């Protein structure tokens, strides 16, 4: 039974793909997983593998042909099997003359297509009664909501999320003015007007509620989520909502880093005027580890994992207004002295609000150090579209077993959060192990 080979849909925006080359000729035998042909989409070039074992029976297209998504490009099957002379069209279509021949193939592909199209009619959406009630009373279609529960079950939380996004645009002019004057955000307000439009009274009620929150809690200040705070809020929320975070932790013996720092302190200071910090060394070590584990230096854009060539490490800097992440470009090419110089300058500019646009762009990985506080470890949130972030805690003297003896060593806990959509546990663990090794033998950084 011949199996269809069709143009895959690789991103939500992809409509056609261009055939770049065939790796197999008609009559060649093909194994599942072997590359069959290469295509170019609006975003990337990619090799397409065979889904089935067999013989490449027929190729319908030539190099440079632009082919619509799901169009049948070829057939793979048993030697001598009969297949149509021209492409029967879109995979899964009924207008297939060799119905008997392809019966099971069609069945199989249609199953695949079903899996691809996620849009379900409202009745079939998995949702809790409460989510349904809230959606109903706010005229939200359940199939517009992605559920966070098991098997995509929609919970109240998910509906509220959509409501929040919607409210901003659905308030009367008067309600907007009142909310602005009182610095309450429209997002969290349940609108009583048509289609959930937020009316003046809804805002008034919410102001009432806020001021009633808990009389025992004296709020001295209210600050609207605006400007930088709002950007941070949105980005963090987006990251937590979209990227499945996994955090690995490890403890690193910092004895040698301490030594290294002491030894290099003078040298660096005489050149840059700054004291060499642990952060500088961690950045350098991270850069090094990334160069050995390029998979960790990736970005996830829509449906593509992009492996970045340059290793640019972002450094989280805390300001009164919020967090900002200036970037040190091409870390592996820089020595500790240069990194120290760059990092200090960026941090200073950040504090003086003198950072240039491009000093904030292009990070491929982020390091967030809270070691100056009494923080042992924490779980950092990934800066999308990056796929990982390293959080480092304070360095603490701790009893450590070294060669069967208990010794007091300076140790530091590190945590690596990664986006499980892009990276799996094992490669991330290997990266973290590499980083630990580098920091425990930092002299190799000088090699």
């Amino acid at each position, binding site marked *: 039974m011949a199996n269809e080979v069709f143009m895959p849909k690789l991103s939500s925006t992809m409509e056609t793909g261009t055939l770049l080359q065939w790796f197999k000729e008609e009559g060649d035998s093909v194994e599942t997983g072997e590359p069959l042909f290469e295509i170019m989409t609006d975003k990337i070039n990619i090799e397409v593998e065979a889904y089935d074992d067999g013989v490449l029976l027929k190729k319908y297209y030539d190099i440079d042909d632009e082919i619509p998504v799901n169009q049948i490009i070829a057939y793979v099957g048993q030697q001598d099997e009969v297949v149509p002379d021209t492409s029967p069209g879109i995979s899964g279509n009924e207008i297939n003359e060799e119905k008997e021949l392809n019966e099971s193939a069609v069945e199989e592909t249609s199953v695949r297509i079903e899996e691809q199209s996620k849009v379900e009619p409202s009745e079939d959406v998995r949702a*809790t009664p*409460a989510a349904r009630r809230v959606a109903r009373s706010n005229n939200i279609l359940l199939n517009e909501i992605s559920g966070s529960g098991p098997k995509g079950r929609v919970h*109240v*939380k998910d509906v509220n999320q959509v409501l929040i996004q919607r409210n901003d645009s659905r308030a009367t002019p008067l309600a907007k003015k009142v909310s602005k004057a009182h610095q309450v955000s429209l997002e969290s307000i349940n609108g009583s007007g048509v289609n959930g439009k937020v009316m003046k009274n809804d805002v008034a009620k919410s102001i009432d509620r806020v001021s009633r929150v808990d009389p025992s809690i004296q709020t001295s200040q209210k600050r609207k989520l605006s400007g930088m705070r709002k950007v941070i809020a949105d980005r963090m929320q987006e990251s937590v909502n979209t990227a499945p975070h996994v955090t690995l932790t490890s403890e690193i013996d910092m004895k040698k880093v301490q030594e290294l720092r002491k030894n290099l302190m003078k040298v660096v200071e005489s050149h840059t005027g700054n004291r060499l910090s642990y952060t500088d060394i961690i950045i350098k070590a991270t850069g090094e580890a990334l160069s050995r584990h390029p998979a960790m230096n990736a970005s996830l854009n829509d449906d593509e994992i992009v492996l970045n060539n340059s290793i640019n490490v972002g450094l989280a800097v805390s300001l009164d207004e919020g967090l900002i992440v200036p970037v040190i470009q091409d870390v592996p090419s820089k020595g500790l002295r240069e990194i120290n110089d760059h990092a200090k300058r960026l941090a200073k500019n950040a504090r003086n609000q003198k950072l240039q646009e491009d000093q904030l762009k292009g990070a491929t990985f982020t390091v967030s150090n809270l070691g100056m506080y009494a923080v042992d470890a924490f779980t950092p949130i990934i800066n999308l579209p990056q796929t990982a972030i390293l959080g480092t805690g304070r360095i603490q003297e701790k009893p450590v077993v070294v060669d069967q003896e208990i010794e007091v060593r300076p140790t530091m806990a590190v945590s690596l959060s990664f986006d499980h959509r892009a990276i799996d546990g094992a490669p991330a663990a290997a990266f973290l192990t590499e980083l630990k090794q580098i920091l425990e033998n930092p002299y190799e950084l000088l090699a």
Partner: protein
Amino acid sequence: MRELTYLEAVREAMSQEMRENNDVFLLGEDIGVYGGAFGVTRGMIEEFGPERIRNTPISESAITGGAVGAALTGMRPILELQFSDFITIAMDQLTNQAAKLRYMYGGKGSVPMVLRTPAGSGTGAAAQHSQSLEAWVAHIPGLKVVQPSTAYDAKGLLKAAIDDDNPVIFYEHKLLYKTKCEVPEEPYTIPIGKADIKRSGGDVTIVATAIMVHRALEAAEKLVKEGIEVEVIDPRTLVPLDEETIVESVKKTGRVVVVHEAVKRGGYGGEIASMIAESEAFDFLDSPIKRLGGLPVPIPYNPKLEKATVPQVDDIVEAVKETIRFK
């Protein structure tokens, strides 16, 4: 206020009532000088004499039938069954006589009796002396079913049960007999059919009965450390059930765990869960209703296994977390 054990509270409710009302008397196996299987009636024969604290032959059917007859003539008997497991022997008298007569006589006769009996596992009494069969009686129209969880509730509910003109099955829990709390000295009633919110919280509702009320409270204590606020509702009486309190709570929290010691399959938790699903609270549920109950096995003698067959604090904590996972 002074504290009383659950056992003492039950005894006090009976004694106070008997001092006031000559129609009230006790009957049961070894309830006289011996003081009953758990000592609940100890000392009562000295005060009230053998006429009113009546030892009976070992026949639950006869005891119950005797009580039904006495009640029909206008007395207000309280009968004690040593272990609630033996209610099976009294079942015909309960189901076909006690529960039915008031209806069949068109209201011209009534059966104002109370059947007191200890239930539950945890004492190493094994398969025939550890069951929780309250769902059996809850199924029979005409019987009221009470399951107090504290000494305070026990005293107030027992008085209400004695005052009631209908047969009331009053379940005591063996492990609760020694628990203590503040109990007023004077007589008081707690209306049958009124649940008690033993702890308020906004995240999850636990509906728990008898011993499970205490485990639920312990679980709530643990969960609050993780920022989960649990509301614990003790229905106190299964029939009639205070649906309103439960429904209102679930409307508030959107999540509910129902816990009882009785075997989960066919247990009263199923009734509570369906009641919630049929009620107004349905539209507020944001997680499937969760039930916890005993495993479908006879209660083992081995203490470890005995524990494992019925819900424990950690099971409740787990169940709550499961319902809250998607909050």
